[in-house]
């Protein structure tokens, strides 16, 4: 075998190896991107459920306290394709609303003993836990994704396919605590 043929084989082998690594790296980034999108969808589902339960809870509260209806219903409706800051904003609004409902309920013992009210509260607590799980999963996936994008040599492929860093789903400090429901 001539030296030119050997050189050609070596060069081709290196090119194939580089191509293989590039494809594997690109697929890895895309896979993580998909996982982030799936986790974001889980957040939306949990937010949607929470929104529905809160709307029902507001209806129950309306029967006891009509004056506060207007303030209680000030909540942005959930929609598809919301930006991250919009999601955070909706979460904050929901937490504020829940706090206000609790304040109203403190003054109305008959409301607190209403079976429907208690059932909805339980449902909200459950969706709150689902939301937290979805948020942690999303942030964990984003963390892995962002790390992949900045670590060399994966960062070269990330730059070539135009992958962008993702933002975390940060909940304001005051809203990180569970909503208290001590009646």
């Amino acid at each position: 075998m001539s030296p030119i043929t050997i050189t050609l084989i070596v060069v081709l082998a290196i090119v194939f190896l580089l191509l293989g690594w590039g494809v594997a790296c690109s697929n890895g980034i895309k896979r993580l991107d998909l996982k982030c999108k799936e986790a974001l969808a889980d957040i939306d589902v949990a937010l949607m459920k929470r929104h529905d339960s809160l709307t029902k809870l507001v209806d129950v509260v309306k029967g006891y306290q009509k004056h506060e209806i207007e303030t209680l219903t000030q909540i942005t409706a959930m929609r598809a394709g919301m930006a991250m800051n919009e999601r955070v904003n909706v979460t904050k609004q929901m937490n504020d609303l829940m706090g206000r409902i609790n304040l109203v309920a403190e003054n109305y013992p008959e409301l607190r003993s209403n079976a429907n009210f208690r059932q909805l509260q339980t449902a909200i607590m459950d969706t709150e836990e689902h939301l937290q799980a979805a948020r942690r999963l999303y942030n964990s996936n984003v963390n892995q994704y962002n790390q992949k994008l900045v670590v060399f040599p994966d960062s070269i492929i990330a730059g070539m396919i135009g992958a962008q860093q993702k933002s975390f789903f940060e909940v304001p400090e005051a809203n990180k605590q569970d909503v208290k429901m001590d009646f």
Partner: protein
Amino acid sequence: MGIYETIQQLESMRKKLLITNYVMIGSFACMFIIPLFLVVIAPGTPGAQPILMLVLMVPMIISVRRQTDIKGKYKELYKSTFVRQVLQDIFDNVYYDGKTGFPSQLVKDMSLCRMGNRFATEDYLSGSYKGVRFEQADVRVQYHTSGKNSHTTTYFEGRMFIFDYPYKKVFSVQVFSENFQYRCKNPLEFKTNKVHMESEVFNREFDVMAVQDVDAFYVLTPQMLEKITLIRNRYGNVALHFNGNKLFVGINCGMNAFDGNPKRPIDYNTERRQAYEDGRVIMDIIEALEIRPAEEPDW
């Protein structure tokens, strides 16, 4: 029969066990030593050696049979005297059967360890502690290959527990400590993914497998990660499986619970303390993982 007479009876059985043990060891040693002496002293009588070996085998076989028999009776009496009483003192609604354990299909469905071709189980216990229902049994799962290079691999030897876990229903989330070697893959025939939790320390010490990643984050809250680490620090080789409204726990410690030690003389207080220590593991898991009964809401 009073407790004093029972202890006397157990002590007599224990001594018999020790004697049969010595006879077995003695016969086994003589089977090789005496023919060897004969070769040196009387080299002209080669036919005597196999006959002597056969003669020495007789007390050995008798000792083995006698030991098995006494061992069974000793275990039964020991468990009914010390274990049952202690368990009734510390748990509610106790049902204890020292001879039976979990069916192999149940152990398979618990999806903690690989299933081999040899299965042994005993010390079935069910009851409740602080309103939490539980079941436990000693389990040994082995894989044995026969033939020229026969060998036995122990997949699991220790205790398995089932706890009611009604307030967070998930679809199969497994947690294995890093040293839990022969773990069950694809529980209930479902494909699981390795889940990367947010705690790097936890990821180094445990492997989390789940059908749906979000389920793992739902059940394994940051507080739960700490509690599981605590359990691992106490008991070493552990596996947990959250599935539906049940939590399965396996402690692969290589030891059985609720068994007396025939090498040690019977002492009423020591034996009761030993049984209590074995039962305490259940209380410890319930308390460490803060498992609560169904009636109590999660907040």
